[in-house]
């Protein structure tokens, strides 16, 4: 697909044009609303939204302070959650006794709607950054944790052969200690699942930060959205959502770049470089 990007951008243009046409007062006859300004009131107008974003970034520049807060929360949640999830997943996967004891608790924690913890975290950690990070960590942790835990667990103990028994036996014959096995066999073979879960986690880290801010805060993009919503300023709400989405995409692309670098040992389909 040579023109893939072209089609993707084209689709975006069509969607925005549709949005613009449907909300532009007086452009189309009213079918749904009593008044031709109502569509704009409910859905915002793309041009106003764009000018809001332009204002934030270029003219007043007051987005940066809030964006910095939100990004800090997101990155902290993402980093802490991923590391804890990876460590916890590996630990439980490699320790059958602990996983047997904790299994019902793990299941319960997973099926609990964790976003509901946000108000509790606000009480525990206050209205500053900490409570948002805590929420994000909780969301990210479980994604990474489950991916690593279930994959490593099932591979090592249930005999699905992703960590190939031969590679494991070979490393042991080459003299690897249990720690070296973890570092040189289990961790590398877990990386592909870790990355697949990291892509999901990036979005959730943003969810944690934004929802936390939305529920109670004095700064951050979520706070901007909350303020705008209070005055029924849909255009600003939309602008905030678009900014968050944009940065989530950037972060996801970064993860993808790191993934490609670290996973270059993995054969890709269509690659026929045999010698």
């Amino acid at each position: 697909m040579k023109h893939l990007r072209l089609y993707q951008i084209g689709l975006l243009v069509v969607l925005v044009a549709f949005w613009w046409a449907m909300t532009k007062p007086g452009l189309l006859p009213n079918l749904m609303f009593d008044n031709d300004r109502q569509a704009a009131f409910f859905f915002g107008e793309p041009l106003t939204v764009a000018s809001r974003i332009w204002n934030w970034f270029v003219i007043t520049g007051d987005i940066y302070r809030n964006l910095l807060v939100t990004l800090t929360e997101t990155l902290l949640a993402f980093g802490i959650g991923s590391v804890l999830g990876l460590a916890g997943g590996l630990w439980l996967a490699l320790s059958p006794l602990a996983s047997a004891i904790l299994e019902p608790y793990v299941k319960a924690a997973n099926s609990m709607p964790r976003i509901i913890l946000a108000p509790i975290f606000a009480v525990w950690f206050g209205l500053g950054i900490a409570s948002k990070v805590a929420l994000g960590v909780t969301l990210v942790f479980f994604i990474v944790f489950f991916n690593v835990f279930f994959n490593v667990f099932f591979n090592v103990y249930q005999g699905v052969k992703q960590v190939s028994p031969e590679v494991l036996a070979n490393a042991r014959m080459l003299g690897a200690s249990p720690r070296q096995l973890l570092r040189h066999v289990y961790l590398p073979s877990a990386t592909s699942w870790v990355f697949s879960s990291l892509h999901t986690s990036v979005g959730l880290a943003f969810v944690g930060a934004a929802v936390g801010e939305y529920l109670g805060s004095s700064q951050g993009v979520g706070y901007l959205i909350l303020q705008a919503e209070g005055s029924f300023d849909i255009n600003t709400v939309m602008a905030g959502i678009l900014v968050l989405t944009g940065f989530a995409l950037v972060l996801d692309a970064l993860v993808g770049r790191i993934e490609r670098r670290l996973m270059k040992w993995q054969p890709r389909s269509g690659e026929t470089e045999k010698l």
Partner: protein
Amino acid sequence: MTDASASPAPDPAPSSAPALSLDGVSCTFISRDSPGQRYTAVADVRLAVAAGEFVSVVGPTGCGKSTLLDVGAGLLAPSTGTVAVFGRPLEGINKRAGYMFQSESLMPWRTALGNVMAGLEFRGLPLPEARAQAGEWLKRVGLGGFGDRYPHQLSGGMRKRTSLAQTLALDPDIILMDEPFSALDIQTRQLMENEGLELWQRKRKAVLFITHDLDEAIAMSDRVLVMSAGPAARMIGEFMIDIPRPRDVAEIKTSARFLELHAAIWFVLREEVLEGYAQQLRAA
């Protein structure tokens, strides 16, 4: 020439203990799902490999040859019997042995060089030194320019060479090989067999070589052991291969002594192969 399984294997170096000896080894596997189901892979196996000796074990497929290697490597504890390494009972992993597996055993996330140096690295050798030694070994197996390739970028034969270098780089006193060349095409295979023999000739390590290919066994070994069909496979024959070295695996296959030995061993092996095949048909 042929020996009953009960009589002890003649030890070519009686003055010192054999490099690896298995005595009365049986392995019974219990099914994890239903503990009542048992499968005895090998029963009462006795074998000894002297230091510097090249011993092959041949037998029908599924007779438990690989199980014996796992026992010798210390990866699998036998149900009964003892394993001794240079006279000392084996506990845990056999640290004096290198094991070349039948299937892919390279770490896919390490380059060829990284794989060869893995063992040296695990033993705490400083990285630059490990890298230099591994590079030497790669050159020795003819992969000097391929150190930065990942396993999936190498052909099957090159991966086997890398495995060979990985095993030999640690300079083990005992080398266990589980059908190392069985996945290769016939030309690459003869090439690898000759190279393997040459490397072995230089260092003279004890080798326990598992194969289902009788030609390969005779061409490479000092001694060939024949196993019966499983379950409860036993040693049923032992043949000294008195063809002079150095050998060329392709050339000696036409020599009179080779054909004689081949006929003698095949006479013992044939019934077991047929028996093993019949069992597989019954199971299917």
